[in-house]
């Protein structure tokens, strides 16, 4: 399966250089620079208002940065259709007359091309994607008749059908029970490990981030730190990320217990 632009996998999949985003006079993202290598899987963690969603929107291209540059495989992002973005709160009208199959097929719109109808291969890709997220039996269901966890899986299937090289999921676990969260984590893991998809997921759940992601980025307007959870989760970094919103209790054996007091999403740090 080929992408629109050939991807030079020796280059970083994603690179931000001095990206600054302002709403009015307020700086939301301040001089963000980092790079993500091919196949990495990173959890972006930060308190409410830290700018996680803004960061994802900027990378996806729905917000333009005030200054700084974003590169996808070394190119300007507009040349790429390989970024899949699952927003935190989708503006989608769930009563819209589309089925699960239709929504996943939408991910292929860019690849099918103008004036063409989906080919057999496109249909196969869609069913393959539905299979990966275990939603094949729901293919013909109108999307309003799905549970929250099933909806997230449809979005994941759409990202798979899109042949995304870079997957951005903004708090995909909010409001899901533990079992559904595990399902989503397993799919994310599969995409990352078997399909070489580079993945960024934002979450409030530092614990789960540590367990399920090889790398964590702590974000609060700036990138506080980025690295493997074991190395970067310490009192100093957590305090500069969460500030007063978080009580950090360091226990004797080096495990940090944290208590998020800010969380309204029902998936707080445990």
């Amino acid at each position, binding site marked *: 399966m080929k992408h629109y632009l050939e991807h030079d996998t020796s280059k970083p999949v994603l690179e931000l250089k001095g990206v600054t985003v302002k709403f009015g006079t307020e700086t939301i993202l301040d001089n963000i620079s980092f790079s993500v290598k091919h196949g990495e899987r990173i959890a972006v963690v930060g308190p409410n208002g830290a700018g996680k969603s803004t960061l994802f929107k900027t990378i*996806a291209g729905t917000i333009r940065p005030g200054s700084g540059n974003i590169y996808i495989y070394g190119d300007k992002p507009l040349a790429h259709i390989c970024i899949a973005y699952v927003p935190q709160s*989708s503006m989608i009208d769930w009563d819209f007359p589309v089925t699960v199959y239709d929504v996943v097929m939408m*991910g292929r719109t860019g690849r*099918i091309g103008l004036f063409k109808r989906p080919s057999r291969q496109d249909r196969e890709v869609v069913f393959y994607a539905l299979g990966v997220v275990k939603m094949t039996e729901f293919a013909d269901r109108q999307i309003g008749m799905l549970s929250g966890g099933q909806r997230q899986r449809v979005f994941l299937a759409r990202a798979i059908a899109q042949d995304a090289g870079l997957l951005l999921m903004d708090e995909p676990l909010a409001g899901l029970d533990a079992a559904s969260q595990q399902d989503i984590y397993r799919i994310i893991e599969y995409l990352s490990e078997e399909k070489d998809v580079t993945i960024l997921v934002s979450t409030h759940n530092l614990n789960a981030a540590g367990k399920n992601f090889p790398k964590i980025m702590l974000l609060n307007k700036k990138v506080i730190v980025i690295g493997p959870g074991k190395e970067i989760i310490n009192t100093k970094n957590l305090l500069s990320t969460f500030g007063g919103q978080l009580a950090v209790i360091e226990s004797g054996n080096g495990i940090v217990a944290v208590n998020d007091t800010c969380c309204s999403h029902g998936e707080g740090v445990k």
Partner: protein
Amino acid sequence: MINRLIAVLAGPLGYPFMVRSLIGSIIVGIICSVVGTYVVLKGLAFLGDALAHAVLPGLAIAYFIGGTATLPLFWGSLTAGLVTATGIGLITKGGQLKEDTAIGIIFAGMFALGIAIISSVRNYSIDLTHFLFGDILGVSRQDIVLAVIIGLVVLLMIILFYKEFLVTVFDPVLAKTLRIPLRFFQFMLLFMITLVIVVSFQIVGVALMVAMLITPAASAYLLTNRLPSMMILSAGFGVVSSITGLYFSYYFNIASGAAIVLTCTVIFIAVFIFSPRKRVFIKL
């Protein structure tokens, strides 16, 4: 028995004007109902009525130039309609204002502009509102040709750009990440809807156009799970309403436009009551 049925069905067809209005209302029924699915899905029920009034300045200017000839009036109102649609598109661009707010602003402004133009000209005694409220029984051959051409163009666009329109309407954020020219397709959709509205109300009048735009699509919305079936069913409702309404009007001496609208409404009520999936109806 059969003979009697044939006689009943053939009755109105003996009159050329009835045949023309039947053809006219079927064509308008199809294109309005199909395009109407987008109008209903985007929650823009107000657009039809607003556009029909916003074209007044175009009508006024066209009347100065060409008098009461059909084509100049059509081009005049089409131009005004496209200006209105562009205005709506530009105002909603940043996402700060909702579409129905933008429609309200532009429609009021354009209508007032039309009145201003008319009132500034002395001896302008002709009542232009006559042209706003076309008459289904006065459909001319030229009207039909115009409706067929525009109908074919619009249906072709809907088929050719089906995928792109679907993504644009359903999930603009996805359209953007897929690098589909979102603004382009949003404007195109708005222009298509405008085209259909302008040509339809000049043929069948504002009230019938609005009904054809909204009611069959709303009925179909309640019965279907997918956009193509919604469009086909909607077109079916539009056609059935046109034919049934016209026959009723012929045999029971009811105003034709009203008879067609009432048929649409009856279908909707029946669907609403018996709909297998009662989706909450919040968009209209």
